[in-house]
Protein backbone atom coordinates (compact mmCIF):
# COMPACT_ATOMS: atom_id res chain seq x y z
CA UNK A 1 0.00 0.00 0.00
CA UNK A 2 2.56 2.50 1.11
CA UNK A 3 4.96 0.88 -1.31
CA UNK A 4 2.57 1.38 -4.20
CA UNK A 5 1.91 4.97 -3.25
CA UNK A 6 5.63 5.75 -3.00
CA UNK A 7 6.31 3.95 -6.27
CA UNK A 8 3.72 5.89 -8.19
CA UNK A 9 4.84 9.11 -6.57
CA UNK A 10 8.46 8.53 -7.59
CA UNK A 11 7.52 7.21 -11.02
CA UNK A 12 5.34 10.17 -11.86
CA UNK A 13 7.99 12.52 -10.52
CA UNK A 14 10.68 10.82 -12.63
CA UNK A 15 8.66 10.71 -15.84
CA UNK A 16 7.32 14.23 -15.47
CA UNK A 17 10.69 15.76 -14.78
CA UNK A 18 12.22 13.70 -17.57
CA UNK A 19 9.70 15.10 -20.03
CA UNK A 20 10.34 18.60 -18.73
CA UNK A 21 14.08 17.98 -19.02
CA UNK A 22 13.77 17.12 -22.68
CA UNK A 23 11.48 19.99 -23.50
CA UNK A 24 12.88 22.87 -21.47
CA UNK A 25 14.45 25.65 -23.48
CA UNK A 26 16.73 26.74 -20.63
CA UNK A 27 19.59 24.29 -20.15
CA UNK A 28 19.90 24.96 -16.44
CA UNK A 29 16.26 24.12 -15.89
CA UNK A 30 16.74 21.00 -17.93
CA UNK A 31 19.66 20.05 -15.70
CA UNK A 32 17.60 20.68 -12.57
CA UNK A 33 14.77 18.52 -13.87
CA UNK A 34 17.23 15.80 -14.75
CA UNK A 35 18.49 15.99 -11.18
CA UNK A 36 14.94 15.60 -9.96
CA UNK A 37 14.48 12.60 -12.21
CA UNK A 38 17.66 11.07 -10.89
CA UNK A 39 16.59 11.64 -7.30
CA UNK A 40 13.27 10.01 -8.08
CA UNK A 41 15.16 7.09 -9.56
CA UNK A 42 17.15 6.92 -6.36
CA UNK A 43 13.85 6.75 -4.50
CA UNK A 44 12.87 3.85 -6.74
CA UNK A 45 16.11 2.13 -5.80
CA UNK A 46 15.30 2.67 -2.16
CA UNK A 47 11.91 1.07 -2.72
CA UNK A 48 13.74 -1.87 -4.25
CA UNK A 49 15.74 -2.10 -1.02
CA UNK A 50 19.00 -1.29 -2.79
CA UNK A 51 20.17 1.21 -0.18
CA UNK A 52 23.73 1.20 -1.31
CA UNK A 53 22.77 1.90 -4.89
CA UNK A 54 20.39 4.58 -3.66
CA UNK A 55 23.22 6.36 -1.91
CA UNK A 56 25.62 5.76 -4.75
CA UNK A 57 23.11 7.20 -7.17
CA UNK A 58 22.82 10.34 -5.12
CA UNK A 59 26.51 10.77 -4.39
CA UNK A 60 27.86 9.90 -7.81
CA UNK A 61 25.12 10.96 -10.16
CA UNK A 62 23.54 13.88 -8.40
CA UNK A 63 26.48 14.99 -6.32
CA UNK A 64 29.17 14.35 -8.89
CA UNK A 65 28.18 13.99 -12.50
CA UNK A 66 25.36 16.49 -12.46
CA UNK A 67 27.51 19.02 -10.64
CA UNK A 68 29.94 18.60 -13.49
CA UNK A 69 27.12 19.16 -15.94
CA UNK A 70 25.91 22.29 -14.22
CA UNK A 71 29.48 23.51 -14.03
CA UNK A 72 30.01 23.09 -17.76
CA UNK A 73 26.60 24.55 -18.52
CA UNK A 74 27.52 27.66 -16.61
CA UNK A 75 30.83 27.84 -18.41
CA UNK A 76 29.33 27.57 -21.89
CA UNK A 77 25.92 29.06 -21.18
CA UNK A 78 25.01 31.35 -24.08
CA UNK A 79 22.05 33.63 -23.73
CA UNK A 80 21.75 33.65 -27.51
CA UNK A 81 21.17 29.90 -27.47
CA UNK A 82 17.89 30.59 -25.67
CA UNK A 83 16.58 32.40 -28.73
CA UNK A 84 17.62 29.69 -31.17
CA UNK A 85 15.51 26.80 -32.36
CA UNK A 86 15.92 24.07 -29.79
CA UNK A 87 15.07 21.07 -31.91
CA UNK A 88 17.00 19.70 -34.84
CA UNK A 89 15.68 19.44 -38.38
CA UNK A 90 15.07 15.74 -38.04
CA UNK A 91 12.74 16.08 -35.05
CA UNK A 92 9.60 14.74 -36.73
CA UNK A 93 11.36 11.74 -38.22
CA UNK A 94 13.04 11.13 -34.88
CA UNK A 95 9.82 11.26 -32.88
CA UNK A 96 8.17 8.96 -35.39
CA UNK A 97 11.00 6.47 -35.11
CA UNK A 98 10.95 6.69 -31.31
CA UNK A 99 7.24 5.97 -31.37
CA UNK A 100 7.87 2.97 -33.57
CA UNK A 101 10.47 1.75 -31.11
CA UNK A 102 8.07 2.30 -28.22
CA UNK A 103 5.38 0.33 -30.00
CA UNK A 104 7.78 -2.51 -30.53
CA UNK A 105 8.81 -2.57 -26.87
CA UNK A 106 5.20 -2.43 -25.80
CA UNK A 107 4.58 -5.34 -28.10
CA UNK A 108 7.34 -7.16 -26.34
CA UNK A 109 5.67 -6.41 -23.04
CA UNK A 110 2.41 -7.63 -24.41
CA UNK A 111 4.00 -10.81 -25.55
CA UNK A 112 5.58 -11.42 -22.16
CA UNK A 113 2.75 -10.02 -20.02
CA UNK A 114 1.94 -13.40 -18.58
CA UNK A 115 5.43 -14.12 -17.31
CA UNK A 116 5.90 -10.91 -15.31
CA UNK A 117 4.34 -10.82 -11.86
CA UNK A 118 5.29 -10.26 -8.26
CA UNK A 119 7.99 -12.78 -8.92
CA UNK A 120 9.50 -15.25 -6.51
CA UNK A 121 9.33 -13.47 -3.14
CA UNK A 122 12.98 -13.79 -2.20
CA UNK A 123 14.02 -13.18 1.37
CA UNK A 124 15.95 -9.98 0.80
CA UNK A 125 19.08 -9.98 2.95
CA UNK A 126 19.21 -7.10 5.39
CA UNK A 127 22.84 -6.15 4.80
CA UNK A 128 22.55 -4.90 1.24
CA UNK A 129 25.81 -2.97 1.36
CA UNK A 130 27.82 -5.95 2.54
CA UNK A 131 26.23 -8.14 -0.12
CA UNK A 132 27.06 -5.67 -2.88
CA UNK A 133 30.57 -5.34 -1.55
CA UNK A 134 31.02 -9.11 -1.47
CA UNK A 135 29.75 -9.51 -5.03
CA UNK A 136 31.78 -6.55 -6.26
CA UNK A 137 35.09 -7.56 -4.76
CA UNK A 138 34.87 -11.31 -5.09
CA UNK A 139 32.80 -12.39 -8.04
CA UNK A 140 33.11 -9.21 -10.11
CA UNK A 141 36.67 -8.32 -9.18
CA UNK A 142 37.98 -8.31 -12.74
CA UNK A 143 35.22 -6.09 -14.13
CA UNK A 144 35.78 -3.84 -11.15
CA UNK A 145 39.43 -3.44 -12.01
CA UNK A 146 38.58 -2.88 -15.65
CA UNK A 147 36.13 -0.19 -14.62
CA UNK A 148 38.80 1.45 -12.52
CA UNK A 149 41.16 1.47 -15.50
CA UNK A 150 38.36 2.91 -17.60
CA UNK A 151 37.96 5.69 -15.06
CA UNK A 152 41.69 6.37 -15.13
CA UNK A 153 41.66 6.61 -18.91
CA UNK A 154 38.62 8.86 -18.79
CA UNK A 155 40.35 11.08 -16.26
CA UNK A 156 43.43 11.42 -18.46
CA UNK A 157 41.26 12.11 -21.45
CA UNK A 158 39.29 14.76 -19.61
CA UNK A 159 42.49 16.44 -18.45
CA UNK A 160 43.86 16.50 -21.98
CA UNK A 161 40.57 17.85 -23.28
CA UNK A 162 40.53 20.50 -20.62
CA UNK A 163 43.97 21.84 -21.43
CA UNK A 164 43.97 25.36 -22.88
CA UNK A 165 46.17 24.40 -25.82
CA UNK A 166 45.41 20.95 -27.19
Amino acid at each position, binding site marked *: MLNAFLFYFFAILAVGSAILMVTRR*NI*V*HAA*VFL*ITALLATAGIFLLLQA*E*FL*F*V*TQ*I*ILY*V*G*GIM*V*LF*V*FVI*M*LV*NLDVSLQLVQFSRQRYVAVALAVVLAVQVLGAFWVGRTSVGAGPAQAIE*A*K*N*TEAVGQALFQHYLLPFEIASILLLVAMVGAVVMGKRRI
Partner: protein
Amino acid sequence: MNHLIPTAIQQYVLPVLYGIVIVAILPLLAGYIVLMERKVMADMQARLGPMRVGPHGLLQPIADALKLLIKEDIIPEHADRFMFWMAPVLSVGMALLAYAAIPFGPVFQVADLNVGLLFILAVSSLGIYGIVLGGWASNSHYSLLGALRSAAQLVSYETAAGLGLVSALIWAGSLSMKSIVEAQYDRGDWFIAYVPVGFFIYLVGSIAETNRAPFDLPEAESELVAGYMTEYSGFRWALYFLGEYANMMVVASIATTLFLGGWLRPFVRYHDHFPGTSVELLDIVPSLIFLFAAAYCLRLVPRQPVKIQRMVMAAVAGLCLVLSGVMAAALLASPGVMAGIHGAFWFLAKVFAYIYGFLWFRFTFPRYRFDQLMRLGWRFLIPLSLVNVIATAVAVVVSEEWGLHPLASALIMQVLTLGVALWLAGRGEEPAAREPQVAEGD
Protein backbone atom coordinates in the same frame (compact mmCIF):
# COMPACT_ATOMS: atom_id res chain seq x y z
CA MET B 1 13.85 2.93 27.93
CA ASN B 2 12.39 0.32 25.61
CA HIS B 3 10.33 -1.04 28.44
CA LEU B 4 8.48 2.17 29.23
CA ILE B 5 7.65 3.38 25.70
CA PRO B 6 5.59 1.24 23.30
CA THR B 7 7.40 0.21 20.14
CA ALA B 8 4.90 1.89 17.81
CA ILE B 9 5.65 5.21 19.40
CA GLN B 10 9.35 4.42 19.25
CA GLN B 11 9.05 3.66 15.56
CA TYR B 12 6.93 6.53 14.36
CA VAL B 13 6.49 9.23 16.98
CA LEU B 14 9.93 9.56 18.47
CA PRO B 15 11.75 10.17 15.15
CA VAL B 16 9.24 12.86 14.22
CA LEU B 17 9.67 14.36 17.65
CA TYR B 18 13.43 14.33 17.32
CA GLY B 19 13.17 15.89 13.87
CA ILE B 20 10.98 18.67 15.16
CA VAL B 21 13.32 19.31 18.04
CA ILE B 22 16.34 19.45 15.70
CA VAL B 23 14.64 21.77 13.23
CA ALA B 24 13.51 23.96 16.08
CA ILE B 25 16.81 24.14 17.91
CA LEU B 26 19.20 24.25 14.97
CA PRO B 27 18.60 27.91 13.97
CA LEU B 28 19.07 28.91 17.58
CA LEU B 29 22.29 26.95 17.77
CA ALA B 30 23.45 28.48 14.51
CA GLY B 31 22.72 31.93 15.83
CA TYR B 32 24.69 31.26 18.96
CA ILE B 33 27.54 29.81 16.97
CA VAL B 34 27.61 33.14 15.17
CA LEU B 35 27.71 34.90 18.50
CA MET B 36 30.48 32.56 19.63
CA GLU B 37 32.35 33.33 16.42
CA ARG B 38 32.08 37.05 16.95
CA LYS B 39 33.10 36.77 20.56
CA VAL B 40 36.08 34.56 19.80
CA MET B 41 37.14 36.84 16.97
CA ALA B 42 36.85 39.84 19.28
CA ASP B 43 38.88 38.06 21.91
CA MET B 44 41.61 37.09 19.45
CA GLN B 45 41.69 40.68 18.19
CA ALA B 46 41.69 42.13 21.73
CA ARG B 47 38.18 43.58 21.40
CA LEU B 48 35.00 43.05 23.30
CA GLY B 49 32.64 42.14 20.48
CA PRO B 50 28.87 42.52 20.83
CA MET B 51 28.04 43.78 24.28
CA ARG B 52 24.86 45.81 23.88
CA VAL B 53 22.01 43.43 23.17
CA GLY B 54 21.65 41.49 26.33
CA PRO B 55 24.44 40.98 28.84
CA HIS B 56 27.67 40.36 26.90
CA GLY B 57 25.54 40.35 23.75
CA LEU B 58 23.81 37.15 24.76
CA LEU B 59 20.63 38.19 22.93
CA GLN B 60 22.43 39.39 19.80
CA PRO B 61 21.50 36.38 17.62
CA ILE B 62 17.83 36.85 18.28
CA ALA B 63 18.07 40.51 17.39
CA ASP B 64 19.92 39.65 14.17
CA ALA B 65 17.31 37.08 13.24
CA LEU B 66 14.53 39.58 13.78
CA LYS B 67 16.32 42.22 11.74
CA LEU B 68 16.83 39.81 8.87
CA LEU B 69 13.23 38.67 9.03
CA ILE B 70 11.83 42.16 8.64
CA LYS B 71 14.26 43.30 5.99
CA GLU B 72 13.00 44.00 2.47
CA ASP B 73 13.42 41.02 0.18
CA ILE B 74 14.98 42.03 -3.14
CA ILE B 75 14.90 39.96 -6.31
CA PRO B 76 17.37 41.30 -8.93
CA GLU B 77 16.20 42.01 -12.47
CA HIS B 78 16.34 39.19 -15.06
CA ALA B 79 16.87 36.80 -12.20
CA ASP B 80 15.47 33.31 -12.55
CA ARG B 81 12.77 33.69 -9.94
CA PHE B 82 12.08 30.00 -9.38
CA MET B 83 15.74 29.11 -8.95
CA PHE B 84 16.35 32.23 -6.94
CA TRP B 85 13.67 31.13 -4.54
CA MET B 86 14.61 27.50 -4.54
CA ALA B 87 18.36 27.75 -4.03
CA PRO B 88 18.54 28.89 -0.37
CA VAL B 89 15.76 26.53 0.63
CA LEU B 90 17.68 23.74 -1.05
CA SER B 91 20.88 24.48 0.82
CA VAL B 92 19.13 24.71 4.20
CA GLY B 93 16.88 21.76 3.53
CA MET B 94 19.73 19.48 2.57
CA ALA B 95 21.70 20.58 5.62
CA LEU B 96 18.75 19.78 7.86
CA LEU B 97 18.07 16.51 6.07
CA ALA B 98 21.58 15.38 6.90
CA TYR B 99 20.76 15.45 10.62
CA ALA B 100 18.34 12.57 10.09
CA ALA B 101 21.18 10.08 10.43
CA ILE B 102 23.34 11.80 13.02
CA PRO B 103 23.27 10.16 16.43
CA PHE B 104 23.33 12.80 19.14
CA GLY B 105 23.25 10.00 21.60
CA PRO B 106 22.64 6.31 21.87
CA VAL B 107 18.92 6.93 21.49
CA PHE B 108 18.67 10.51 20.27
CA GLN B 109 18.79 9.74 16.55
CA VAL B 110 16.09 10.14 13.93
CA ALA B 111 16.92 7.09 11.82
CA ASP B 112 19.78 4.66 12.13
CA LEU B 113 20.28 3.83 8.44
CA ASN B 114 22.75 1.08 7.75
CA VAL B 115 24.27 3.39 5.13
CA GLY B 116 24.01 6.33 7.47
CA LEU B 117 27.35 7.90 6.76
CA LEU B 118 26.93 7.62 2.99
CA PHE B 119 23.48 9.09 3.37
CA ILE B 120 24.85 12.08 5.19
CA LEU B 121 27.57 12.58 2.61
CA ALA B 122 25.08 12.26 -0.22
CA VAL B 123 22.66 14.75 1.24
CA SER B 124 25.32 17.25 2.16
CA SER B 125 26.75 16.92 -1.33
CA LEU B 126 23.36 17.97 -2.60
CA GLY B 127 23.89 21.22 -0.75
CA ILE B 128 26.15 22.28 -3.61
CA TYR B 129 23.11 22.92 -5.78
CA GLY B 130 21.86 25.45 -3.32
CA ILE B 131 24.98 27.47 -3.91
CA VAL B 132 25.49 26.86 -7.62
CA LEU B 133 21.91 27.44 -8.66
CA GLY B 134 21.60 30.45 -6.41
CA GLY B 135 24.72 31.96 -7.88
CA TRP B 136 23.51 31.27 -11.38
CA ALA B 137 19.97 32.41 -10.79
CA SER B 138 20.86 35.81 -9.41
CA ASN B 139 22.19 36.72 -12.88
CA SER B 140 25.31 38.48 -11.72
CA HIS B 141 28.93 37.90 -12.62
CA TYR B 142 30.12 37.92 -9.04
CA SER B 143 27.53 35.39 -8.08
CA LEU B 144 28.25 33.17 -11.06
CA LEU B 145 31.98 33.21 -10.41
CA GLY B 146 31.39 32.43 -6.75
CA ALA B 147 29.10 29.58 -7.70
CA LEU B 148 31.58 28.11 -10.15
CA ARG B 149 34.36 28.40 -7.63
CA SER B 150 32.37 26.71 -4.93
CA ALA B 151 31.28 23.95 -7.29
CA ALA B 152 34.88 23.22 -8.29
CA GLN B 153 36.05 23.49 -4.70
CA LEU B 154 33.41 21.21 -3.27
CA VAL B 155 33.83 18.56 -5.94
CA SER B 156 37.58 18.66 -5.38
CA TYR B 157 37.57 18.39 -1.62
CA GLU B 158 34.63 16.00 -1.25
CA THR B 159 36.87 13.26 -2.61
CA ALA B 160 39.69 13.92 -0.18
CA ALA B 161 37.38 14.25 2.79
CA GLY B 162 35.46 11.11 1.88
CA LEU B 163 38.69 9.12 1.57
CA GLY B 164 39.79 10.53 4.90
CA LEU B 165 36.60 9.14 6.40
CA VAL B 166 37.13 5.79 4.69
CA SER B 167 40.31 5.27 6.69
CA ALA B 168 38.22 5.45 9.85
CA LEU B 169 35.49 3.31 8.30
CA ILE B 170 38.00 0.54 7.70
CA TRP B 171 38.55 0.33 11.44
CA ALA B 172 34.86 0.69 12.21
CA GLY B 173 33.74 -1.95 9.74
CA SER B 174 30.31 -0.44 9.28
CA LEU B 175 28.52 2.48 7.68
CA SER B 176 25.88 2.97 10.32
CA MET B 177 26.77 5.92 12.51
CA LYS B 178 25.59 4.17 15.62
CA SER B 179 27.70 1.07 15.08
CA ILE B 180 30.69 3.23 14.24
CA VAL B 181 30.50 4.82 17.65
CA GLU B 182 29.95 1.45 19.25
CA ALA B 183 33.00 0.14 17.43
CA GLN B 184 35.01 2.89 19.06
CA TYR B 185 33.55 1.92 22.39
CA ASP B 186 34.60 -1.67 21.79
CA ARG B 187 38.11 -0.73 20.76
CA GLY B 188 38.31 1.58 23.74
CA ASP B 189 40.09 4.31 21.77
CA TRP B 190 38.67 6.95 19.48
CA PHE B 191 39.60 6.52 15.86
CA ILE B 192 41.59 9.74 15.89
CA ALA B 193 44.18 7.70 17.74
CA TYR B 194 44.19 5.17 14.90
CA VAL B 195 44.14 7.50 11.87
CA PRO B 196 45.33 10.96 12.87
CA VAL B 197 46.29 11.60 9.26
CA GLY B 198 42.80 10.73 8.14
CA PHE B 199 41.44 13.12 10.75
CA PHE B 200 43.71 15.88 9.47
CA ILE B 201 42.63 15.26 5.89
CA TYR B 202 38.98 15.37 6.88
CA LEU B 203 39.56 18.52 8.91
CA VAL B 204 40.98 20.38 5.93
CA GLY B 205 38.43 18.88 3.57
CA SER B 206 35.53 19.82 5.80
CA ILE B 207 36.75 23.39 6.13
CA ALA B 208 36.85 23.61 2.35
CA GLU B 209 33.46 21.95 2.00
CA THR B 210 31.82 24.48 4.25
CA ASN B 211 33.49 27.38 2.38
CA ARG B 212 35.10 28.59 5.58
CA ALA B 213 38.28 30.63 5.75
CA PRO B 214 40.98 30.04 4.68
CA PHE B 215 39.08 28.35 1.85
CA ASP B 216 36.26 30.87 1.55
CA LEU B 217 37.00 31.60 -2.09
CA PRO B 218 33.34 31.38 -3.18
CA GLU B 219 32.47 34.31 -0.92
CA ALA B 220 35.79 36.10 -0.89
CA GLU B 221 34.69 39.63 -0.13
CA SER B 222 37.94 41.06 -1.43
CA GLU B 223 37.55 39.46 -4.85
CA LEU B 224 33.87 38.73 -5.47
CA VAL B 225 31.74 41.02 -3.38
CA ALA B 226 30.06 38.23 -1.48
CA GLY B 227 30.31 35.43 -4.00
CA TYR B 228 27.12 33.54 -4.63
CA MET B 229 25.31 35.51 -1.93
CA THR B 230 25.95 38.88 -3.52
CA GLU B 231 22.42 39.44 -4.78
CA TYR B 232 20.70 37.94 -1.76
CA SER B 233 19.36 39.92 1.10
CA GLY B 234 17.04 39.63 4.03
CA PHE B 235 15.49 36.31 4.80
CA ARG B 236 16.89 34.36 1.84
CA TRP B 237 20.34 35.51 2.85
CA ALA B 238 19.58 34.41 6.37
CA LEU B 239 18.64 31.00 4.99
CA TYR B 240 22.00 30.74 3.22
CA PHE B 241 23.69 31.74 6.43
CA LEU B 242 21.73 29.19 8.39
CA GLY B 243 22.61 26.60 5.79
CA GLU B 244 26.28 27.35 6.06
CA TYR B 245 26.33 27.04 9.82
CA ALA B 246 24.13 23.98 9.73
CA ASN B 247 26.65 22.47 7.35
CA MET B 248 29.41 23.32 9.77
CA MET B 249 27.55 21.44 12.45
CA VAL B 250 26.99 18.52 10.09
CA VAL B 251 30.68 18.14 9.25
CA ALA B 252 31.52 18.66 12.91
CA SER B 253 29.10 15.92 13.84
CA ILE B 254 30.56 13.58 11.23
CA ALA B 255 34.06 14.24 12.52
CA THR B 256 32.85 13.76 16.08
CA THR B 257 31.18 10.50 15.23
CA LEU B 258 33.98 9.00 13.19
CA PHE B 259 37.09 10.32 14.87
CA LEU B 260 36.15 11.73 18.25
CA GLY B 261 34.08 8.90 19.61
CA GLY B 262 30.64 10.37 19.09
CA TRP B 263 28.66 10.57 22.26
CA LEU B 264 31.25 8.63 24.25
CA ARG B 265 32.63 10.26 27.34
CA PRO B 266 36.43 10.59 27.49
CA PHE B 267 38.08 7.58 29.15
CA VAL B 268 34.88 5.66 28.54
CA ARG B 269 36.54 2.37 29.45
CA TYR B 270 37.84 3.77 32.72
CA HIS B 271 35.52 2.41 35.38
CA ASP B 272 35.61 3.56 38.97
CA HIS B 273 32.35 3.67 40.80
CA PHE B 274 31.08 5.58 43.74
CA PRO B 275 31.14 3.24 46.63
CA GLY B 276 27.96 1.26 46.64
CA THR B 277 26.55 2.65 43.40
CA SER B 278 27.00 1.95 39.72
CA VAL B 279 27.65 5.61 38.95
CA GLU B 280 31.09 6.36 37.62
CA LEU B 281 33.11 9.27 38.93
CA LEU B 282 33.75 10.94 35.59
CA ASP B 283 30.02 11.17 34.92
CA ILE B 284 29.77 14.07 37.36
CA VAL B 285 31.88 16.26 35.11
CA PRO B 286 28.98 17.62 33.01
CA SER B 287 26.93 18.75 35.96
CA LEU B 288 30.05 20.23 37.55
CA ILE B 289 30.78 22.16 34.38
CA PHE B 290 27.28 23.61 34.32
CA LEU B 291 27.58 24.35 38.03
CA PHE B 292 30.73 26.39 37.43
CA ALA B 293 29.07 28.16 34.52
CA ALA B 294 26.15 29.08 36.78
CA ALA B 295 28.49 30.37 39.45
CA TYR B 296 30.33 32.48 36.88
CA CYS B 297 27.12 33.97 35.59
CA LEU B 298 25.96 34.71 39.10
CA ARG B 299 29.23 36.53 39.74
CA LEU B 300 28.60 38.55 36.61
CA VAL B 301 25.03 39.46 37.54
CA PRO B 302 25.73 42.44 39.82
CA ARG B 303 28.17 43.94 37.32
CA GLN B 304 25.55 44.42 34.63
CA PRO B 305 24.78 48.09 34.07
CA VAL B 306 21.05 47.86 33.48
CA LYS B 307 18.40 46.16 35.48
CA ILE B 308 17.00 44.18 32.58
CA GLN B 309 20.42 42.89 31.78
CA ARG B 310 20.89 41.82 35.37
CA MET B 311 17.63 39.92 35.09
CA VAL B 312 18.70 38.23 31.86
CA MET B 313 22.01 37.32 33.36
CA ALA B 314 20.30 35.83 36.35
CA ALA B 315 18.06 33.89 34.03
CA VAL B 316 21.09 32.50 32.24
CA ALA B 317 22.56 31.51 35.57
CA GLY B 318 19.34 29.79 36.44
CA LEU B 319 19.36 27.95 33.13
CA CYS B 320 22.85 26.69 33.83
CA LEU B 321 21.78 25.59 37.30
CA VAL B 322 18.81 23.73 35.85
CA LEU B 323 21.02 21.98 33.30
CA SER B 324 23.46 21.00 35.98
CA GLY B 325 20.60 19.64 37.96
CA VAL B 326 19.38 17.70 34.97
CA MET B 327 22.82 16.22 34.48
CA ALA B 328 22.97 15.27 38.14
CA ALA B 329 19.49 13.81 38.08
CA ALA B 330 20.35 11.76 35.02
CA LEU B 331 22.92 9.97 37.15
CA LEU B 332 20.16 8.68 39.32
CA ALA B 333 17.82 7.85 36.42
CA SER B 334 17.99 4.55 34.54
CA PRO B 335 21.25 3.90 32.64
CA GLY B 336 19.51 4.37 29.29
CA VAL B 337 18.31 7.85 30.13
CA MET B 338 21.66 8.71 31.68
CA ALA B 339 23.52 7.54 28.56
CA GLY B 340 21.10 9.49 26.35
CA ILE B 341 21.38 12.80 28.16
CA HIS B 342 25.09 12.68 28.88
CA GLY B 343 25.74 11.38 25.39
CA ALA B 344 23.99 14.42 23.94
CA PHE B 345 26.09 16.64 26.20
CA TRP B 346 29.39 15.11 25.22
CA PHE B 347 28.44 15.01 21.56
CA LEU B 348 27.56 18.69 21.50
CA ALA B 349 30.66 19.50 23.52
CA LYS B 350 32.87 17.79 20.92
CA VAL B 351 30.97 19.41 18.07
CA PHE B 352 31.53 22.83 19.60
CA ALA B 353 35.18 22.10 20.17
CA TYR B 354 35.52 21.16 16.50
CA ILE B 355 33.69 24.31 15.43
CA TYR B 356 35.94 26.32 17.74
CA GLY B 357 38.81 24.89 15.71
CA PHE B 358 37.09 26.22 12.58
CA LEU B 359 36.86 29.68 14.07
CA TRP B 360 40.46 29.52 15.19
CA PHE B 361 41.63 28.69 11.64
CA ARG B 362 39.52 31.46 10.22
CA PHE B 363 41.12 34.09 12.40
CA THR B 364 44.68 32.88 12.00
CA PHE B 365 45.15 31.81 8.39
CA PRO B 366 45.26 34.08 5.31
CA ARG B 367 43.08 33.18 2.37
CA TYR B 368 44.40 30.87 -0.33
CA ARG B 369 44.69 31.79 -3.99
CA PHE B 370 42.41 29.66 -6.13
CA ASP B 371 45.18 27.82 -7.96
CA GLN B 372 46.88 27.18 -4.62
CA LEU B 373 43.61 25.80 -3.33
CA MET B 374 43.27 23.44 -6.28
CA ARG B 375 46.91 22.38 -6.04
CA LEU B 376 46.53 21.62 -2.33
CA GLY B 377 43.44 19.56 -3.02
CA TRP B 378 44.52 17.59 -6.06
CA ARG B 379 48.25 17.32 -5.61
CA PHE B 380 48.52 16.95 -1.83
CA LEU B 381 45.32 15.89 -0.11
CA ILE B 382 43.96 13.34 -2.57
CA PRO B 383 47.22 11.41 -3.06
CA LEU B 384 47.82 11.56 0.66
CA SER B 385 44.34 10.26 1.46
CA LEU B 386 44.74 7.41 -1.03
CA VAL B 387 48.03 6.44 0.57
CA ASN B 388 46.38 6.76 3.96
CA VAL B 389 43.55 4.40 3.01
CA ILE B 390 45.97 1.80 1.70
CA ALA B 391 48.16 2.13 4.77
CA THR B 392 45.17 1.70 7.06
CA ALA B 393 44.04 -1.40 5.20
CA VAL B 394 47.55 -2.81 5.53
CA ALA B 395 47.49 -1.99 9.23
CA VAL B 396 44.19 -3.83 9.71
CA VAL B 397 45.47 -6.89 7.86
CA VAL B 398 48.72 -6.87 9.81
CA SER B 399 46.98 -6.59 13.15
CA GLU B 400 44.56 -9.38 12.23
CA GLU B 401 47.03 -11.75 10.62
CA TRP B 402 50.04 -11.36 12.89
CA GLY B 403 48.22 -10.50 16.05
CA LEU B 404 50.02 -7.18 16.33
CA HIS B 405 48.18 -4.74 18.57
CA PRO B 406 45.85 -2.72 16.32
CA LEU B 407 46.91 0.62 17.73
CA ALA B 408 50.58 -0.24 17.25
CA SER B 409 50.23 -1.35 13.63
CA ALA B 410 47.95 1.60 12.88
CA LEU B 411 50.44 4.07 14.30
CA ILE B 412 53.35 2.49 12.42
CA MET B 413 51.47 2.79 9.16
CA GLN B 414 50.46 6.34 10.06
CA VAL B 415 54.12 7.25 10.50
CA LEU B 416 54.83 5.86 7.04
CA THR B 417 51.93 7.89 5.70
CA LEU B 418 53.35 10.97 7.36
CA GLY B 419 56.60 10.33 5.50
CA VAL B 420 54.64 10.23 2.27
CA ALA B 421 52.90 13.42 3.32
CA LEU B 422 56.21 15.18 3.84
CA TRP B 423 57.41 14.00 0.44
CA LEU B 424 54.21 15.21 -1.19
CA ALA B 425 54.48 18.56 0.52
CA GLY B 426 58.04 19.01 -0.64
CA ARG B 427 57.11 17.95 -4.14
CA GLY B 428 54.03 20.13 -4.31
CA GLU B 429 56.16 23.22 -4.01
CA GLU B 430 56.84 23.96 -7.65
CA PRO B 431 54.37 26.51 -9.02
CA ALA B 432 51.69 24.78 -11.07
CA ALA B 433 49.76 27.88 -12.04
CA ARG B 434 52.58 30.02 -13.44
CA GLU B 435 53.57 30.21 -17.10
CA PRO B 436 56.45 27.89 -18.02
CA GLN B 437 59.76 29.76 -17.76
CA VAL B 438 61.53 30.57 -21.02
CA ALA B 439 64.36 28.11 -21.35
CA GLU B 440 67.46 30.29 -21.77
CA GLY B 441 69.46 29.13 -24.77
CA ASP B 442 73.20 28.61 -25.09
